[in-house]
């Protein structure tokens, strides 16, 4: 039976199978005559390949390279750009770039052959940091100045603002790489059957995969069938990166004629997949005599790596997030995505917003501390409200409930009393962060690029199929989509299916990204369900199809990046309490309190799951997840060295929701998957800087870094 309110929790449809270990992931699936593939990578940061010494291959074993790309096919992967080749084209431009793929039926034998392949190189100079990339130390990697994009945002009159400044506060704040560490590593199986390529993949975006490889194979998209395998976590790491595995794999599948599996071991997955972009923000902020901000000039750079991938879209969200929940007068933001020989960075939960928000939250905290004002109170002065102007000169359409949310979080955490008790530098501190996340694609992406379509089908027996391309990857979509439909159709959940998508069956409702699935596609489910309900008795079988409708009043110019960057926002407040050990600088997190506005929760338990996971992942990013790029490669590449938090590290969390229904989301729901990641790292760092009485300028805030700051 349906529950009374849409928010009331029901049992997830995948709960028993996943908790019980019955679920079949890609490595559990059986295929006849399955072959195994290993990517042969260029283990140089920048080098010309001069010779590949290949042992004699036994029958049934293949080494596939760019020479095997079918006639008319291109050695380029169709992502947002096409710069990333399928196989390194004579030159390796980052450590781990694919040169070939070794395939065979026996894994021991494949390993043995791999060990005897020797590749000779001529070394070329490489750069890894934002500064060295910008300085073009080794010449040009991309464009005319080693950037993939150079954006400017202007709000108000920055020069006039600075002219009124009484003092100027400068800051340089940075964030590091972050590994996704989805529980299930990257994996897929590709096969070539009667002219069709079938890719069964752990992935977020089946239609992206199809598009990525079509030009490589020089074939019609309809001949590429992508079936999503149960996906054990993704966090953005399976948005574009599966393209990089699928492209060489389909080339091999055509040559070998057998299904081929590529599944990364954990160490390969950490060493050789894309990460969150490292970022830097250089701030110059003018204050008047009362300490009010009169102008702000920000230079944001992200380390994009050797190929563009989706870096420019990440950069856009990073710079749009520089004022996040604040209405600050007279702002200029420059944003550049910098080309280097680092492993290309890519999508990761929050997609640039966590970087932008961290940089800005810390800078505002530093200003407040400089003025001797508590950061939370200072930031409150600038809370944006409905009708205010955003950083892209758009309109804030939402009712903003931040003051209420702060009140709730402050009460739950006893913020003001603890702030009074814990003197700055006392070893104890309360940190507060505020954040929002634009839900869905940037600007008019949904309207111009995605154009989502969705079908629902009633069968003779009354069973309903929801046909869409968004995937269950742990976030609960295979429960929440049917839940929306069940509530409208007034039929039991068991009578509705929402299976893993197959591109030859489902319409393209877009990728599973950008906190868009439940809000944008869920709205389509709602509308399709309403239509199906109206036509239910029309005939024994009824099929309806709906298309995305762009919200009225949302204007956007993608050329100038002006207007309403997002149709709506989720909102958050996070408070963290810490105690710093004076001998070891280890941080004990005493409490975490959050309040989020996600519109309306479609299922409270699922929302809380997202809040808990996102906040803890963000705290890991802020405190533990050190990932150094040393000698051109990731230095912490095992689970023994790359530290994500355990429940012992962040034991206690209280989370609350406030309702704030959004008319273009189903039942008023907004996107939340990324929102809940965006702010906790800043709250943690803020708490530490209160506790030690000195500014924190980067994450992760490790004990080593805290000790360095304490000693300075």
């Amino acid at each position: 039976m349906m529950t009374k309110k849409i928010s009331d929790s029901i049992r997830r449809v995948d709960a028993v199978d996943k908790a019980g270990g019955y679920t079949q992931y890609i490595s559990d699936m059986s295929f006849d005559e399955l072959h195994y593939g290993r990517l042969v990578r260029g283990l140089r940061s920048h080098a010309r390949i001069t010779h590949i010494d290949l042992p004699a291959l036994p029958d049934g074993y293949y080494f596939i390279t760019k020479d095997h790309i079918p006639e008319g096919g291109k050695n380029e992967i169709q992502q947002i750009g096409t710069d990333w080749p399928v196989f390194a084209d004579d030159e390796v431009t980052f450590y781990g770039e694919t040169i070939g793929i070794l395939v065979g039926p026996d894994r021991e034998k494949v390993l043995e052959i791999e060990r005897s392949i020797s590749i000779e190189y001529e070394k070329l100079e490489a750069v890894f940091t934002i500064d060295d990339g910008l300085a073009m130390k080794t010449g040009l990697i991309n464009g005319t100045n080693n950037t993939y994009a150079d954006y400017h945002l202007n709000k108000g009159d920055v020069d006039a603002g600075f002219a009124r400044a009484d003092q100027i506060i400068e800051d340089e704040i940075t964030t590091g790489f972050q590994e996704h560490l989805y529980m299930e590593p990257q994996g897929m199986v590709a096969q070539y059957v009667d002219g069709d390529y079938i890719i069964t993949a752990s992935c977020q975006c089946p239609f992206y995969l199809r598009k990525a490889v079509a030009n490589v194979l020089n074939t019609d998209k309809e001949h590429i069938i992508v079936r999503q395998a149960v996906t054990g976590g993704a966090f953005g790491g399976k948005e574009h990166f599966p393209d990089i595995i699928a492209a060489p794999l389909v080339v091999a599948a055509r040559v070998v004629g057998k299904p081929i599996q590529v599944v990364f071991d954990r160490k390969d997955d950490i060493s050789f997949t894309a990460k969150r972009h490292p970022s830097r923000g250089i701030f110059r902020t003018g204050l008047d005599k009362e300490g009010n901000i009169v102008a702000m000039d920000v230079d944001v750079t992200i380390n994009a790596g050797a190929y563009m991938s989706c870096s420019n879209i990440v950069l856009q969200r990073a710079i749009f997030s520089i004022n996040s929940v604040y209405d600050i007068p007279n702002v200029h933001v420059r944003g550049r995505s910098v080309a280097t020989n680092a492993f290309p960075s890519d999508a990761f939960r929050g997609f640039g917003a966590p970087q932008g928000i961290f940089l800005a939250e810390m800078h505002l905290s530093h200003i407040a501390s400089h003025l001797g004002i508590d950061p939370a109170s200072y930031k409150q002065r600038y809370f944006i409200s409905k009708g205010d102007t955003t950083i892209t000169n758009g309109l804030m359409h939402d009712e903003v409930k931040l003051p209420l949310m702060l009140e709730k979080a402050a009460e739950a955490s006893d913020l003001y009393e603890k702030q009074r008790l814990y003197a700055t530098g006392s070893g104890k501190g309360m940190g507060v962060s505020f954040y929002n996340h634009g839900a869905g694609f940037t600007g008019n992406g949904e309207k111009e690029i995605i154009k989502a379509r969705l079908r629902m089908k009633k069968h003779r027996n009354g069973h309903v199929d929801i046909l869409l391309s968004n995937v269950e990857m742990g976030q609960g979509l295979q429960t929440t989509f049917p839940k929306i439909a069940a509530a409208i159709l007034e039929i039991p959940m068991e009578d509705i299916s929402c299976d893993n998508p197959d591109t030859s069956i489902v319409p393209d409702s877009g990728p599973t990204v950008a906190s868009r699935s439940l809000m944008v596609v869920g709205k389509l489910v709602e509308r399709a369900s309403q239509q199906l309900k109206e036509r239910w008795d029309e005939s024994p079988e009824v099929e309806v199809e709906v298309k995305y409708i762009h919200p009225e009043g949302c204007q956007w110019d993608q050329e100038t990046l002006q207007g309403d960057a997002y149709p709506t926002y989720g909102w958050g407040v996070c408070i963290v309490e810490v105690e710093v050990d004076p001998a070891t600088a280890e941080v004990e997190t005493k409490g975490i309190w959050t309040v989020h506005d996600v519109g309306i929760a479609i299922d409270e338990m699922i929302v809380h799951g997202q809040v808990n996971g996102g906040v803890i992942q963000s705290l890991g990013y802020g405190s533990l997840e050190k990932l150094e790029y040393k000698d051109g490669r990731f230095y912490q590449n095992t689970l023994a060295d790359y530290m994500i938090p355990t429940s012992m590290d962040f034991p206690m969390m209280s989370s609350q929701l406030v309702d704030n229904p959004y008319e273009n989301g189903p039942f008023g729901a907004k996107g939340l998957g990324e929102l809940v990641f965006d702010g906790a790292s800043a709250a943690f760092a803020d708490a530490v800087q209160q506790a030690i009485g000195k500014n924190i300028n980067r994450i992760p805030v490790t004990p080593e870094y805290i000790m360095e700051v304490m000693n300075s």
Partner: protein
Amino acid sequence: MVKTYRPENLQEALRIRRETHAVPLAGGTDLMVRYRSWAGTLPKFPWPVLFINHLTELKTMGLREDGLHIGAGVTLSEIEREMEAPQALRAAVSEMAAPALRNLGTLAGNICNASPAGDAVCVLYALDAQVVLTSLSGARTVSVMDFITGPGRKDLNDDELMTDIIIPHANFSHVSYRKVGTRKANALSKMSFCALAKTKLGRIDDVRIAFGAVGPTVVRSWETEKKLLGMDADDLKDHLSAIHDDYDAMIHPIDDQRSTAVYRKQVSLNLLDQFLQNLVKEL
């Protein structure tokens, strides 16, 4: 293919060890990880493997005249629960890895790993622990600190098996063990610190101070410890900075993927100072 042996008893194990020099594997929590290979293929051990996990002769633990004996097959979990085991050792063991690994891993394996970051090893240094090395020709007993000769290097002949660990009797009025890990659970050490002291009539009667993961082997100085013997609160107070300087000169950590030399050194000295200052107060 890797050649493996599963002997019926210790005697047979020793014979196989002499004949094949097969490497003993008890819990396998280090070796299986170190020699892991591509999923679906066998671990790539470069030598034959001798399974000893099931040998009952190695499973005993108990007090004897010369101290607590811990068989080489005794798991970390069993030590964690053993009331007769020294407090510092139980503390160290309880913070190692995760419960599932502690149910498999052995203290003997941890010692044979000869890692300068082995948490238990730091405590065993402070406890003057010894190991019994047995071969078909007999048994010899050496101290843990003589047994471990460098990172991954140990004084173990290729026909010997470690069969027992002996922790001599001793009582301490002050016990301090601190593991500074990469996170709060299931973590490797950035450094570890073990300090034990016994006071008698307001003076230091026995003291041992050991630092793990700050050099090629655990750092412990008999010379400095000797200086501390007999001190009362005032003496100790007067000598705090001299003692600090002694260890400052001895501790030479490195930068690696887990931490930095600067941090390791400063934390070592901070924990030392903290321990000695507490001792001043309590003498």
